[in-house]
C-alpha cells in the first residue's frame, strides 16, 4: 500500500524541528525504518513529517569521562561498524549488528528506535540494560536538557516520556567499570525478525550496577527486583519471572525464562570489560 497524504520538510535546526511539533499534527522522522512500514500500511497518518536525520546537532558523538553521548541520529550501522566509539568495548556493536537487516541498519537510528519504543526493539532493552540515559530537549527555550533514565523513558508499547513538543536529542551510555560483564540474548524465529523474548544482563561490581532486563513483553522492559539472587542461583529464572511479570501467559513466561537462562549461561563465560 501507499501512505496517506502528508507533507514533508527537512528541519534546518533543532529549533526549527521543535516549532514544527507545535499543534501536535507533525511527527519527527529520522531513518523511517519503523515509521515507514506503518505509513505504507496507513496505520499512522501524520499531517506532516519533519526529517531530522541529517541535523548536525543530532549527529554528534561526545566522549566524556564516565560516558559517551550519542546523537539521536547516529545509525545502527555506524555503531555496528565502529564508526563511532563504543563505551562498552563491543557490547553495543554486537547488539547493533543484529538489528533487523543491514539495509535497515544503514538508515535506522538509535534515537528513532528509542522514541518509537517498539517493545521488541533491540535498543529499547539494550539501553535499559546498560543503564543509559535519554537526553530530552523540551519546548522552553534555554531550559537545560532533561535527563531521563531509560527505564523511565520507555513507558509502554510505542509510548515514551516524551511530551508533544519534546525531542530526544541524545542517549548517554555509561562506561562500564573494569571487570564488568554483559550478556544479551533474544529469541527470534528468523534472523532480523523482532524478538519474541529477550533478556539482557549487566554485572558491573566496581560501579555497583547489576541489572537484569526482560524485553519483548509488549510493553516497556521489566527489571528484575533481585538480579543477584538469579545470578547466584538462589532464585530460578522462572521463579523470578513469575514474580516480575505475573500477567504473562505460561507460554510467554517459558519463552522469557529460556531467554534469561541463555543470557545467564552467556554471562558466566563473558569476557570481563577492560577499558
Amino acid at each position, binding site marked *: 500500500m501507499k501512505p496517506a497524504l502528508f507533507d514533508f520538510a527537512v528541519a534546518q535546526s533543532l529549533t526549527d524541528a521543535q516549532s514544527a511539533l507545535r499543534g501536535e499534527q507533525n511527527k519527527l522522522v529520522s531513518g523511517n525504518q519503523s515509521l515507514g512500514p506503518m505509513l505504507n500500511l*496507513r496505520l499512522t497518518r501524520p499531517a506532516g513529517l519533519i526529517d531530522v536525520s541529517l541535523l548536525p546537532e543530532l549527529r554528534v558523538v561526545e566522549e566524556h569521562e564516565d560516558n559517551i553521548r550519542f546523537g539521536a541520529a547516529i545509525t545502527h550501522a555506524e555503531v555496528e561498524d565502529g564508526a563511532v566509539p563504543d563505551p562498552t568495548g563491543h557490547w553495543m556493536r554486537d547488539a547493533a549488528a543484529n538489528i533487523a537487516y543491514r539495509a535497515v541498519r544503514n538508515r535506522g537510528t538509535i534515537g528513532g528506535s528509542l522514541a518509537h519504543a517498539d517493545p521488541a526493539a533491540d535498543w529499547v532493552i539494550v539501553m535499559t540494560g546498560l543503564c543509559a540515559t535519554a537526553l530530552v530537549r523540551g519546548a522552553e527555550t534555554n531550559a537545560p536538557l532533561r535527563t531521563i533514565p531509560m527505564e523511565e523513558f520507555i513507558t509502554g508499547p510505542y509510548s515514551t516520556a516524551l511530551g508533544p513538543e519534546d525531542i530526544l536529542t541524545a542517549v548517554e551510555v555509561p562506561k562500564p567499570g573494569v571487570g564488568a560483564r554483559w550478556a544479551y540474548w533474544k529469541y527470534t524465529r528468523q534472523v532480523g525478525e523482532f524478538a519474541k523474548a529477550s533478556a539482557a544482563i549487566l554485572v558491573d561490581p566496581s560501579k555497583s550496577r547489576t541489572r537484569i532486563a526482560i524485553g519483548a513483553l509488549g510493553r516497556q522492559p521489566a527489571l528484575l527486583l533481585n538480579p543477584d539472587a538469579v545470578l547466584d542461583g538462589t532464585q530460578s529464572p522462572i521463579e523470578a519471572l513469575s514474580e516480575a511479570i505475573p500477567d504473562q501467559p505460561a507460554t510467554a513466561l517459558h519463552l522469557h525464562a529460556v531467554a534469561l537462562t541463555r543470557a545467564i549461561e552467556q554471562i558466566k563465560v563473558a569476557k570481563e570489560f577492560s577499558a
Partner: protein
Amino acid sequence: MTDTTVDLVVNGTPVSETAEPRTHLADFLREDLLLTGTHLGCEQGVCGACTVFVDGRPTRSCITLAAACKGAEVRSVEGFDDDPLMLALRDAFKRHHGLQCGYCTPGMLVTGYDIVRRLPNADADRIRKELSGNLCRCTGYAGIVAAIVDVLENNPPAAKIQPQTRALQNSGTSAVEPIEAISQTTSSVAAKTSGATSIPTKQSLAAAPTLSRTLAFEASTSEIWDIISDPEKIASCIPGARIDNITDDNLLQGQCAIAMGPIKAAFTGTAKMDLNEAEKSGHVIGRGKDGLSRSQLDGMLDFRVTGLPEGGTELALEMIYKLTGPLSQFSRPTLVAEIADRILGQVAASIEALAKGQEPDQTTQTNINGLSLLSAALWGWIKRALRF
C-alpha cells in the same frame, strides 16, 4: 499538501522532479524515472526486493522517502553496466542458478555487492545471515549463496560503489511553514470512509484468539449493570468510542478511535447486543472497519456481572477478536493483550466514576494508549497492534 522537488543523482545522472512527499524512493524510481528494475514486494521493508544503493549503502527504497534523498547518490540495478564487481556477481548468479523468476534479483545483487565489499572474509554461514533481509521464493538460496562465495573466493574486482556521507542541504526555508497547511486534507480523507454495516457470525470467529479479563468495582451490581447494559453509557466509558445510531432492529452503529504512539485507527461499524437481565449477562458481536488502513476487526464479547461476597462487583469479560487487513500484519498477541489491559484499565475507571454519579474522566480518554477499536459497541475488542 504541497509537492516537493526531489533533486538527486540516479545512476550518475542528476535528476530533478516534483513529487508528492509521500512518494517513496522505489515509486519515484519506477513511476517517475521509469526505472522498473527496482522491484516492490512487500512495501514494508521485509522482503528486500527494492534494495538499492543510497549514498553507497544498501537501502530499502520502499521505506525511504524520495523527498528524504535530496542530494543523494542513488544507484539502482540499471546503473552497474561498467562496474566490474557487479559484472562478476551477475556472471556468478547465472552460472550458479542464483535466480529463477528474477523478482528478488535486483535486491539480491545489491546485497551481494555489499557483502563482497564489506565482508571479504565472509563464509557461507555469514552470507546466509547477511542475506536474511532478502527473500527469494524460487531458488532456496543455495545458488545465491554459492554465487557470492564464488565471487569472494576468486579475487573479486574492487568495488566502485563506496559509502559516502551526505550533509544537510540548506533549503533556506524553515520546516514549519509547509507543514501546517495539510492537516485538514488528511482528516477529510479519513472522514469519507464508510464503516462496516454487517456483523460477523459466531462460526466465523470460531478459531480466533480469545482474551479473558476480570474487573472489580466498588459499586453495586445493579449500578454496574445499569451502565454496562446501556449502550450510550458504556460507550461513554470507552476511550474514543461513540454511538451514532441505534437502528429499529436494535443494531448499534458507531465508531471507536484508538491511538497508540504513532498509530491511529478509527473503526466504524455495527454491533448487536443481547442482554440477559435475569443473569446479568450479555453478549455483543460486531464488526468495524478502519477505512484508511482497510483493516477490519470482528469481535465478540460475553460479559457477566456478579456481586462479590465482601461487597462490590465483579465484571467478567470473554473477548474474541479477529483482525484482517494491514493492521493484522502488525499484530503480536503480547501487544494485543497489553493494549487491551491499558484500555480496560481506563474503561474500569470510567465505569466506577459513572457509577458514583461523576462524569467519565475525559483526560484519561484523550490520552488513551491503545490501538483498537471496537466498533459500535462496547467493550472490547481490542485491537492489536503492531509489529514489524
